[in-house]
């Protein structure tokens, strides 16, 4: 039905004559205009109707494919979503000619996009169409002259294989085999990267007869860039094969890869180690992977060691339970000990990010005896990243042995990081403060860490001050309002008299964050007077932040205080000479967002680290107030 109405529209309506002109736009000299037209190709197709799209637009597109790569990329992407615009699945094969040309161009991004679109529309082909139209295209690409078409073909075998007849299947396998031994390394790389995917859709017998020989050949290719891709395929292949075949069919190749002369291949093995471990199962892991892993941890290239170090925890976790502890203690731990004093900081920091996880696996006694010295050594490492990685994972150890064991070494490490010259390091340590506070307890905190937390409030980087504010709020949540009243509120309020207006504003930001957790009493009696007094500040930025603060703490105050104290001040600010101050005073007076703001503050408190706040989540339910909160935090 709708086709008809559209066609009528296309023929009869005057407004549609410019369609020809639109197609002309696709030929415009200006690339930007061509690009715009291509991006609106679906609009053009919709206006043309399905039939004219098929008979006029697509042939035109197929013929004129010689353009800027950027235009071609847009075209390749558009065509993947064109099925309905050419009349649905029964006509989807019309899209093949232009995509076929696109799959042969030189530029990789264009080609990849064309292949992606082809893969997408392959699903919309009926089995018959797949054999009549799609599979011949794959074959043409696979036997193309220039390497680009053969590369593209590699990505298309697996999508059509499951849905064609067995004769065609045999042809497809043959084509894939040919491409795996192509004399262009680019094609072999493409084939190697699709080997695992293709193996998954093959029948098990063919996996054994075909894929294994291809896998072995690619894994001993003369180019390391091909060999390393075979490692990836190894995971999929090993998963597909029954356990008893692994030893003979996969392991020789895997062993060879783990000792390849190119570090890139060894790196790949290290990087995929957990996946490999799962794929080959516990027995082979014990016999083969453990020594291989030891070698990777001792590799001569730092890149390989770092990749292996990253996998230490996962590897140990997945060891078979009966022999886990023995393997770790006798084989893995000695290597780990060496890595703690590695010459390369990336290796050490990779290790530091996972080493704490070993304590849960090894239990209390082993942790105290063997791991603790390593943690302590890493806490004193010269590289801040290493120390930070240890501190950020303290919770794992805390569960096993309690953090007290570490506290003596912990403190100097924290203090040093807290004063690090790089603000990102300082920021990172702040984020762990609430966690540390919870684990070390209030006494230790007051004694050693409180001063740090206050010092961050006057850091010269805004991001640090802002994180410090959030940190205070979380601390109060942990230690309670009474603690806040005694330890931090006086200091925060003291900053209201600081000569630096930025410090004065920090007071306001702290109050914004703390009022809710401190409760009505403290807010009204201690914070409010300070805020109100600051409304006379000479710097406009401070004054309008007073207005914003009043709006934010309003819900915590009782109505009496609102009426008698807050309202007059806001009214005064409303007559301020500065337009921004006025604006925010009005916002606060109208108070329409008050309830939302409470809600928001509460959300912030429970959302966790700033980086994880879902911005959309906030802006959905908000306009003014929360958005501001976010923008402040994000800045």
């Amino acid at each position: 039905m709708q086709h008809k109405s559209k066609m009528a529209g296309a023929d009869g309506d005057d407004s549609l004559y410019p369609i020809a002109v639109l197609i002309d736009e696709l030929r415009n000299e200006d690339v930007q205009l061509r690009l715009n037209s291509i991006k609106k190709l679906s609009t053009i197709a919709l206006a043309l109707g399905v039939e004219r799209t098929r008979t006029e637009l697509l042939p035109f597109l197929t013929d004129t494919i010689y353009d800027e790569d950027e235009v071609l990329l847009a075209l390749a992407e558009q065509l993947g979503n064109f099925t309905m615009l050419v009349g649905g699945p029964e006509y989807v094969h019309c899209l093949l000619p232009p995509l076929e040309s696109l799959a042969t161009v030189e530029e990789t991004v264009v080609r990849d996009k064309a292949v992606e679109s082809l893969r997408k529309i392959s699903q919309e082909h009926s089995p018959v169409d797949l054999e009549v139209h799609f599979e011949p295209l794959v074959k043409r690409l696979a036997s193309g002259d220039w390497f680009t078409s053969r590369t593209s073909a590699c990505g298309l075998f697996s999508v059509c294989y499951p849905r064609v007849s067995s004769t065609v299947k045999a042809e497809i396998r043959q084509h894939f085999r040919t491409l795996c031994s192509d004399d262009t390394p680019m094609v072999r790389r493409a084939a190697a990267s699709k080997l695992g995917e293709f193996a998954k859709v093959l029948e098990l017998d063919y996996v054994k007869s075909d894929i294994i020989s291809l896998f072995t050949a690619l894994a001993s290719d003369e180019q390391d860039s091909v060999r390393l891709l075979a490692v990836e395929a190894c995971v999929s292949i090993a998963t597909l094969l029954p356990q008893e075949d692994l030893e003979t069919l996969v392991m020789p190749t895997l062993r060879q890869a783990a000792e390849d002369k190119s570090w890139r291949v060894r790196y790949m093995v290290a990087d995929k180690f957990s996946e490999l471990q799962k794929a080959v199962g516990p027995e082979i892991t014990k016999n083969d992977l453990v020594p291989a892993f030891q070698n990777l941890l001792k590799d001569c290239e730092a890149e390989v060691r770092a990749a292996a170090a990253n996998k230490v925890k996962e590897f140990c976790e997945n060891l078979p339970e009966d022999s886990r502890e023995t393997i770790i203690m006798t084989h893995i731990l000695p290597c780990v000990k060496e890595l703690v004093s590695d010459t390369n900081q990336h290796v050490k920091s990779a290790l530091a990010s996972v080493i704490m996880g070993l304590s849960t696996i090894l239990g209390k006694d082993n942790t105290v005896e063997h791991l603790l010295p390593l943690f302590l050594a890493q806490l004193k490492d010269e590289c801040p990243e290493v120390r930070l990685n240890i501190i950020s994972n303290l919770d794992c150890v805390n569960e096993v042995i309690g953090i007290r064991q570490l506290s003596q070494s912990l403190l100097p490490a924290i203090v040093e990081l807290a004063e690090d010259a790089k603000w990102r390091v300082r920021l990172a340590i702040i984020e762990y403060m609430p966690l540390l506070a919870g684990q070390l307890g209030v006494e230790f905190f007051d004694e050693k860490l409180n001063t740090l937390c206050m010092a961050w409030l006057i850091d010269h980087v805004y991001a640090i001050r802002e994180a410090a504010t959030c940190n205070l709020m979380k601390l109060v949540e942990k230690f309670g309002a009474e603690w806040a009243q005694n330890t931090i509120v006086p200091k925060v309020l003291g900053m209201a008299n600081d000569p630096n207006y930025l410090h004065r504003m920090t007071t306001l930001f702290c109050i914004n964050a703390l009022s809710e957790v401190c409760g009505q009493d403290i807010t009204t009696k201690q914070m409010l007077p300070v805020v109100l007094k600051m409304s006379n500040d000479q710097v406009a930025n401070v004054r309008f932040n007073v207005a914003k603060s009043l709006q934010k703490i309003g819900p915590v105050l009782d109505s009496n205080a609102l009426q008698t104290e807050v309202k007059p001040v806001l009214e005064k600010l409303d007559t301020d000479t500065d337009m921004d101050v006025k604006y925010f005073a009005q916002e606060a007076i109208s108070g329409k967002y008050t309830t939302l703001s409470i809600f928001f503050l509460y959300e912030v408190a429970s959302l966790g680290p700033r980086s994880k706040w879902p911005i959309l989540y906030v802006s959905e339910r908000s306009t003014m107030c929360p958005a501001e909160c976010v923008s402040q935090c994000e800045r």
Partner: protein
Amino acid sequence: MTPLAPLLCTTMSAISATEKVDGFTRKSMRKAQKQKKSQGSSQFRTQTLTELSPLPQLKDAPSTEQQELFTQKLQQCCMLFDFMDSVTDLKSKEIKRATLNELVDYVSTNRGVLVETAYPEISNMICTNILRTLPPSDNPDFDPEEDEPTLEASWPHIQLVYEFLLRFLENPDFQPSIAKRYIDQKFVLQLLELFDSEDPRERDFLKTVLHRIYGKFLGLRAFIRKQINNIFLRFIYETDHFNGVAELLEILGSIINGFALPLKAEHKQFLMKVLIPMHTGKGLALFHAQLAYCVVQFLEKDPTLTEPVIRGLLKFWPKTCSQKEVMYLGEIEEILDVIEPTQFKKIQEPLFKQISRCVANPHFQVAERALYFWNNEYILSLIEENIDKILPIMFGSLYRISKEHWNPTIVALVYNVLKTLMEMNSTLFDELTASYKSDRQREKKKEQEREELWKKLDELKLSDAAALVQNNSHGLQNAAQNINNNNNHHDNQEKSTAISVDHEDPVVAMDTTEGVEVVTSAK
């Protein structure tokens, strides 16, 4: 047999062009204080080290024992040392160095030492020392234009081995028919991979070595060309990174120079499918001189390639990188220097459309470089011959720039060019001046029509979509909705920017050296 031209000895100064780009200090200068880095080769060692003991001098040995001693020394030099550790094996390292020196001397000054039995030993020694997997780069974002290269730590030995290899290849007794058993495809492939070395000294040796091999082993020539082809394609389309591009291009320059005529299809394909796309490669400044040399070599061999080459360059013309644009213009001038007038006619229109855009470029170096074409006598004569075609293309930009360009030098140059063009055909010039305004108006009107058109189309699509929703047709509806969603999304974005601009509070910031915040003072 096609002759092989000698390598260009002049190291083309590709860097100087990049250095004068602007007045800002280059990163490399700021980094200059940093000490030079060096790194070891990624040798996956399996052998254990044993201390070397010095052998007697070759020249002192009786001639009957020399060959045996030569072999022993070659074997001794197969021991590899860790140069990252500068204190271990000092004695053995020194022995190997001295032995290598002696070997270099031995093969370059003596005749009759390259007997057949020596070849496998020589090859083994060379392969063990040189053919290795390059280590991971210390600096993963190594930028060859900015950063200091990491040097090969074992250079004291490797250099001598390269030296030895060269002397071996150049020895008058050298017999390719025996050597081809060792210097085979596999050897060449590994040699080519070494061109990725960050150490310029190593690449320089490799260049000479490969050039010699290409000259002496006819059977390997096609293979070498094909592998270089693959390296380049990988560089262009996959990795964007290969340190030895300039060196390989330099070798190719001399290879192309020796191509027999008519050019084989394979060579033409190499030009169009590899060399031209190569212009899009990263760090073009590092190898552009060599690349342009190759291209021009091709055109001198076969002028009919001019049109596809220039069209290719126009296709890849840089959109945003002015520095690259200047290089392209330089290459175009080199091509125009050797162009035949008949070829010029074929490409003048698209070419001068681009030149016209360059002249109007707000970056004065681009505009200046394009305007310099008019200082070239030969180009000037070509323009004069075709003034009726070129003047209408150029006129608009030149006329506008003469009034609008911010840079006085450019304006002065444009006046000169306009004057030259006027002298070439004053009638046409006057006509164009007269119709300039109406032409601009026509263009504006066309622009408006285009906008109208799209607006209409958008409306049409909206009503279509509405109708479709009613008809409850499935796919088209989705498609239309998608489009609508996109539009809405766009609208929202615009709105939200507007809001944030309106209400943004003054930036709360302090002075900081770390660059997180914008520094603004309080109002």
